[in-house]
Structures are given as structure tokens and as C-alpha cells.
């Protein structure tokens, strides 16, 4: 026993303390102590989770309350649900809220299609093809992930304004067809690298060209990466406010975030019920995407972020 080597003098000290100190008498005691520790951990985690979600739940509950009650009731009990908040909010702006939902859905759809096509093409080239300048282009792509959009927005706006494309969805969607969301290129590169080269070699020996390999081998195998991209694009575009605020000023073309912000600025301080109701409506799609796509979201983040 005296020959045992310890990681550090402190470890040695602690080990000897442990031997001398009151030792758990039996397995029951050890098990109880472990259970107590687990219970404390869970209590801490549950309290944190409750604190975090409370405001969101309060938002949902309050959206069913009369406006004058919202700021008097921090609790979660609803007396008489005011569904009228929803109908009032739905028709609270120049257009019914459904128009904004549809506009957002169109922009989101366009962005998803654009990202899926352009990013997967670029990713295939970076992951599996050998070409001159590959390393340089790849480094540029990686650096562009971190480039702030603000340095581009002024000239882009001038450019799109000159083409007469302000108050259209083109400035929001077109860049996605040109793979400007380099983050997704990177995510897909990571994924395609995992596809065995032997598979591609075999296809090549069978006479497949690159377009064929891409369409019938790469794309079907990278469905999880495509799904992750679609989900992230959905959430980011749905929430995107900066560029939609800049390009969409026509009330008929406003997307949900822009409309909601207009609603907030125009509604008087007594009109919180309908405003809350439309806030909830605007979060519903995100919530569903999260519900069905969270496994992919978590994997996607972990894969591109993990070491």
C-alpha cells in the first residue's frame, strides 16, 4: 500500500483522509448518498429549466388574458380564455396576419431550396474532387463563415435597389442560390467526407460522370445533412429581421418579424393581448420544427462545432 503512486501530493492526502475518515458502512449508505446527489442535481436542473421557460409559458398564458390583466398577473392560471385576442390580433394590421405568415413561408421555402442546391454542390467539390486552388478556396470559404453581413449590406442594398428589387423577395432568396451561407457548405463537407471513396470509385468504373455520382450516390446518402440544413435555414430565415426589415417596406410583402415589430410600435400600451397572441402565432412554426427536428439540430451543431 505504501508503494502506491498518487497523481499529486494532494491526491495522496485526500486518499489517506478517505481511509481515515468516516467510511460509508455498507452499500446501502453509498447508494443513498448517490441517490441524494442525483436528486439534488435533478432539482437544480429542473429549477433552472423552469426559470428559463417560465417567461415563454407566461407569454402563451397571457395571450389568452384580457389586456388589462396581463400586467397584474404573474401567475399561470387562466380564468376565462380570451380567444378574441387572436382574432383581434389577426386583423390588427393593414393585412390579415395570414398574409405575413404566407410571405415568411415563401421566403423560407425559397431560401431552403437555394441552400440545399447550391451548398450541396459546393460541398461535393470541396469534399471529394481534386482541383487546382482547392486549399485556397476552402480557406476562403471557412473565413467567410465569420464575415459580418453588415459590411456587405449597404452595397448590396444599392445593387438590388438599382435593379428595382427592393420590396421583392429576390434580395432575400437569390444569395441562398449562390451558397452565401458558407456554414452549410462546411456542414455538408463534413458529412460528405464520411462517404467512402470506394463507392465513388466503383461508380466511376461503371462509367458514371460527376453529375451522375452527385445525383444518385451523394445526394441520397447525405439526406441527414440536407435535412439539418433545411431545418436550420427554416429557423434562421423565419427569425431573420435585419435583412427583411431593410428590403421589405411594402405592407403587402412584410414577413412575420417585420409585421410583428410594426404591430408593436403601432399598438397602444393597452393592446398587449392581441400583440401577445400574434407573438405566439409567430413562434408556433419554430416550435414545431424544433419538436420534429431537434435530433438533427443537435447533431448538426455538435458535428460542426465539436472538435
Amino acid at each position, binding site marked *: 500500500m505504501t508503494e502506491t*503512486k498518487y*497523481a*499529486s501530493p494532494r*491526491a495522496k492526502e485526500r*486518499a489517506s483522509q478517505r481511509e481515515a475518515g468516516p467510511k460509508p458502512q455498507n452499500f446501502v449508505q453509498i447508494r443513498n448518498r448517490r441517490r441524494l446527489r442525483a436528486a439534488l*442535481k*435533478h432539482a437544480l436542473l429542473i429549477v433552472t*429549466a423552469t426559470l*428559463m*421557460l417560465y*417567461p*415563454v409559458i407566461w*407569454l402563451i398564458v397571457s395571450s389568452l388574458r384580457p389586456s388589462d390583466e*396581463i*400586467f*397584474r*398577473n404573474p401567475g399561470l392560471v387562466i380564468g376565462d380564455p380570451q380567444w378574441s385576442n387572436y382574432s383581434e390580433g389577426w386583423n390588427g394590421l393593414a393585412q390579415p396576419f395570414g398574409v405575413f405568415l404566407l410571405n415568411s413561408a415563401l421566403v423560407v421555402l425559397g431560401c431552403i431550396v437555394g441552400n440545399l442546391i447550391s451548398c450541396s454542390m*459546393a460541398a461535393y*467539390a470541396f469534399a471529394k*474532387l*481534386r*482541383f487546382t486552388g482547392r*486549399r485556397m*478556396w*476552402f*480557406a476562403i470559404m*471557412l473565413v*467567410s463563415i*465569420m*464575415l*459580418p453581413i*453588415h*459590411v456587405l*449590406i*449597404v*452595397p448590396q442594398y444599392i445593387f438590388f435597389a438599382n435593379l428595382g428589387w427592393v420590396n421583392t423577395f429576390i434580395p432575400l432568396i437569390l444569395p441562398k*442560390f*449562390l451558397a*452565401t451561407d458558407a*456554414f452549410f457548405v462546411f456542414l455538408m463537407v463534413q458529412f460528405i467526407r464520411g462517404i467512402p471513396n470506394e463507392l465513388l470509385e466503383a461508380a466511376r468504373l461503371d462509367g458514371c460522370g460527376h453529375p451522375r455520382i*452527385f445525383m444518385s450516390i451523394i445526394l441520397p446518402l447525405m439526406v441527414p445533412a440536407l435535412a439539418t440544413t433545411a431545418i436550420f435555414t427554416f*429557423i434562421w430565415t*423565419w*427569425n431573420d*429581421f435585419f435583412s427583411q*426589415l431593410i428590403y421589405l417596406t411594402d405592407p403587402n410583402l412584410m414577413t412575420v*418579424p417585420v409585421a*410583428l415589430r410594426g404591430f*408593436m*410600435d403601432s399598438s397602444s400600451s393597452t393592446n398587449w393581448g392581441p400583440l*401577445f397572441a400574434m407573438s405566439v402565432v*409567430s413562434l408556433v412554426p*419554430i416550435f414545431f420544427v*424544433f419538436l420534429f427536428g431537434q435530433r438533427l*439540430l443537435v447533431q448538426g*451543431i*455538435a458535428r460542426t*462545432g*465539436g*472538435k
Partner: protein
Amino acid sequence: MSSLGELRRVAKSAKGAVEDKAARTKDNKAAYLFLLPWLIGLGLITIIPMVSSLVLSFTDYNLLRAPSFNGLDNWIHMLSDEHLQNSLRVTFTYVFISVPLQLGFALALAVLLNRGLRGLAFYRSIYYLPSLLGTSVAIAVLWRAVFGGEGLVNQVLAVFGINGESWIGSPDTALSTLVVLNVWTFGSPMVIFLAGLRQIPEGYYDAAQVDGAGAWTRFTRITLPLLTPIIFFNLVLQVVHTFQAFTQAFVISGGTGGPLDSTLFYTVYLYKRGFGNFDMGYASALAWLLVLIIAAFTAINFWAAKYWVFYDD
């Protein structure tokens, strides 16, 4: 491999080995065809606008008349622009306080959640959800209602007999409500930490435990050092993101960055100058200053990484 790890590898291999050029034929034609959309985007949507905004930063331009060169006027004006100084102070405070807090929370909860905890997936989902909602306008609306004069926070405080002022209406506290909002979205760095924690071989902990290392020692001697590349990745990414924060400050302050410039994020000020006053020349100069600031901080981060980031390869 994170994008940063990847970049490091690219840089490393560029210095080192000569590629076996003859080994395989190249697919130049196919590759550039597949890259075509990306290359067009890089040119039209990224590089040309970058260069144009640099050029515009030396002009006076309001969209109506053609830009006219005014030399260094925009850049000199920045030196005496009080709002800019306010916005820099606000933005730096915001970045320096909310990034460490957010990453601290993310790391603490990732460590708590790691290692076979029952209900891990459930907790992870709940903690992750706010980071998806956090930048939406709806949550900004909610934040106004939570931290307003009669908001949720003050309602709860009133139960304890404390009469709170509006957190958003006071220049002393408005920024802190935004910090809270940013910390609230710690879920996405947490998920990255969780993935990193899973890469640490269980054997290290077993060996340490046999040697009598306590939980804290195991954390500081094994977990932290092996996690430094991921902490670094999260740090660089969050600093870059946080400098660009816009929506929440814009919506919560009603587009003003007030009260008294106390939530005037850099990007909010840039928006006001560029798309409020249509001062495109000045806004371009502001945008370039932001790029320089972010680049400088990223460079400092990379330089400092030599002293604290531990690579296991």
C-alpha cells in the same frame, strides 16, 4: 472537426508537405462547375460589395445623388461622433459581459448534464429551445413585457414588497436586460460543449479516480484542458456573433437604441445612419470599422490561444 480546427489544419498542411500532384488526375472542370454558384456568390454577393463599401466609405452618398468623394471626412468624423462612442461603449460592455456569462452557463450545465444522467435528452431540449427563439421579434416583445414597468419581473418583486422601476426604461438597467436575454440562449454553445465532453475518453476519469482525484480535480485537470479547443471555438464564434447583435436591441428600444443611447448597439447605430438617414457613405465606413474590430478581436483570440488552448494531436 470545427471550422476553426479545420482552418488550423489547412494552414498547417499548407506550410508542410508537398502534395502528391502526380498521384491522381484532377477534376478541374467538374469541380469548378460544381463550385460555380458558390464562386458567383463569392464574387457578386461578398467580394464586390466588400470592396464597394470600402470605396463608399470615402464618399458622401445618400442614394439620390451620385456618390462624391470626400476623402477621409467620414473616418475623421467618426473620431468626434459621440453616438458612435456611446455605441462602441455599449457594444463592448455587452460583448465582454454577456459572452463569458453565456459560455460559463453553457459549460456548467453541459458538465452537469454529461455522463449518463437520466433524462439528458429532455433537459438538453429544454435548455436548447431558447437559443432557437432568442433572436425572434416575438421574444423581444416578450422581453419588453417581462422587464417593463409593470412587467413580469416587477410583478414578482412586488410580491416581496419591492417596487421596481421599468428595467427597460432606465438607462442604468436597459443593457442588462439584453445581457440576460443573451445568456438565456446558452443552449447552442452548451450542445457543442456536450459533444466535446463526449469525446474525452472515460478511461482518463477512471484512472484519475483510482489515483484518488476528487470531482473538482478531475474537472480542472482533465475536463478543462481537453475541452480548451472547444471553449476556444465557442469563444471566437460568440464574440463574432455578439458584436453583430441587432434585433433585440432594435426592437426592445423601439428602433432608437435608447434610453440615452444605453442600448445603442453598433449595428443599431449603423442601421440608423444607413437606412434611417440614408447616409450610405458614413454607414459604409461604420461597417468597415466593425469588420476591423471583429477581425482584431478574432486575431487576438487566435494569438492568445497559443497560451491556453491545448491540442491533443
